[in-house]
């Protein structure tokens, strides 16, 4: 009985947050003692339409009526303002005005980081010791986060080069070598090839993570800025990623005019 009380005391102490800190969720561990982030996750917001706060609006194809209208959103940017340099602000506006032609997602191009995270499709974290693989349903996009000594990218790419580390409960991923061809959303928010993203994945409950990304690009922004949002576990029985090899959904757009007998 006395031993039981002593154990309870230890348990209570172990779960008490340190003085001055907000009580933090402690996620179950993997077999090698790391926070266990394995699972299929998805953002539930309208960040992919516009990172900044936005009201609902008419969709790009009038004949589709309410089906593909833009859903409203409170915004995921700290301070709700992306700090563009003046020339870049003008380009963002031009992008937005012509997004139906220019948004790389329309062509099924690889989405880059952080956009891959909040596209309206699930992604799966497969966590090992030396590597963490992140597989995205959209376009079969993938990243392998190196968890050993940081390495340099062999080449620039659409999904960049990811080096990760643990900071307490948080997986921190440093992403470099991203090309300048991806966007952040349908609203024309963009970056250059000088983009540097630091992501933080922090468990906030058994089935939710908090996702933060700090975005730095001195060619486009006057200072680093940050987005944050929860990610939700896909808890359905038998949840798994399915094929969304969208190249074929973009072919008519890209190659239709070159048909022997164009459809229109």
């Amino acid at each position, binding site marked *: 009985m006395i031993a039981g009380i002593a154990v309870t005391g230890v348990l209570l102490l172990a779960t008490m947050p340190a003085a001055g800190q907000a009580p933090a969720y402690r996620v179950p561990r*993997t*077999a*090698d003692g790391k926070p*266990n982030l*394995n699972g299929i996750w998805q953002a539930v917001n309208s960040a992919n339409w516009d990172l900044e706060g936005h009201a609902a609006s008419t969709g790009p194809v009038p004949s589709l009526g309410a089906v593909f209208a833009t859903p409203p959103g409170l915004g995921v940017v700290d301070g709700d303002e992306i700090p563009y340099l003046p020339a870049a602000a003008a380009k963002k506006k031009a992008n937005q005005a012509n997004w139906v032609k220019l948004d790389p997602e329309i*062509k*099924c*191009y*690889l989405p880059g980081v952080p956009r891959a995270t909040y596209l309206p499709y699930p992604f*799966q*974290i*497969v*966590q*090992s*010791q*030396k*590597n*963490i*693989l992140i*597989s995205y349903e959209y*376009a*079969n*996009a*993938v990243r*392998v986060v190196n968890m050993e000594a940081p*390495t340099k990218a*062999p*080449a620039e*790419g*659409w*999904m960049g080069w990811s080096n990760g580390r643990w900071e307490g409960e948080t997986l921190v991923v440093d992403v470099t070598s991203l090309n300048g*061809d991806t966007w952040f959303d349908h609203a024309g928010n963009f970056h250059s090839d000088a983009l540097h993203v630091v992501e933080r994945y922090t468990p906030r409950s058994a089935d939710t993570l908090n996702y933060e990304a700090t975005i730095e690009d001195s060619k486009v922004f006057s200072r680093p800025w940050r987005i944050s949002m929860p990610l939700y576990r896909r808890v359905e029985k*038998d949840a*798994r*990623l*399915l*094929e969304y*090899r969208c*190249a*074929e959904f*973009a*072919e008519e757009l*890209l*190659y239709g005019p*070159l*048909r*022997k*007998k164009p459809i229109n």
Partner: protein
Amino acid sequence: MSHRLLTSFSALVAVLLLAQAPLAGQAWTPPRTADGQPDMQGVWTNGTLTPLERPKGLGTKEFYTDQEFAALAKRVRQGDVGTEADLGAANNQALRYDLSLYGFDITKATFASNKRTSLIVGPEGVVPPVLAEARKRNADRAAKNKGHEFDSYENRPLQERCILMGQERIPMLPGVNDNNELQIVQGPGWVAFLHEINHSTRVIPTDGRPHISQKVRQYQGDSVGRWEGNTLVVDTTNFTGLTAFRGSGEKLHLVERFTRASDDTVTYQITVEDFTTWDKPWTAEIPMTKTPGPIYEWACHEGNSEISTILRGARVVEEDAAQKTAK
């Protein structure tokens, strides 16, 4: 043959001779992941010089002897191997191209050594005859496309369209000379396979869950896995009729077995079954060998100028022909 290629083939033979696979049946205990799965993680290549089907003339002979293997290696050096080794582009184009310019330099590639005479196992060593109904199905499809090959992107093969490349398509048969790299990452209850070509990723559950609804058909089907001792067994169904692996239909049923056979070898065994295409299942065994990483990003669709160039070319030819007729 140029001096350069002779040097290349010498290097190749060295690779063939040095990389000896462990003897069949030899006991070897694979390392374990933190949660106790046999650990197959790393970057592997299934590149091989062994042809899928056994060359005619070898009859039921499944393995070369050491002496025969050495003699074959010598003939590889002379570039005179006929159908006994699959040199791919190196075989046919040796006299026309400097392969190193195109990234197809086989001397820079890693191959698992293999004394099998064919990847297909068993006395026959060839793909079983295709059933009449499957021959008709495939002939009808080809006939429908004949004369329309350049009409539209829809008439082009899946790999030109960056939808499904030869090497990523399961079962994964090696492509000759290039793009055979595969990274395996294991998490609790899941095994991920990342094929470099087309950043093709499969994340396979190993928790005993059933296949998804038969209504959901996918190019790569639906894969579920389980561990049998040191072997990961992956069962795949739900293919599309367009997947057409060597003429298969949507009833294709594939069983893949991955076994870590030594520190630097994973044995990849496939059993292919489709009773609408072949009258019996057939099995092949492909050694995968360790290769230095990392896996690069192989973005295909984003840089695809092939489809638009082919279609534009066809339209130009048609316009020229129309103008000549008009004159």
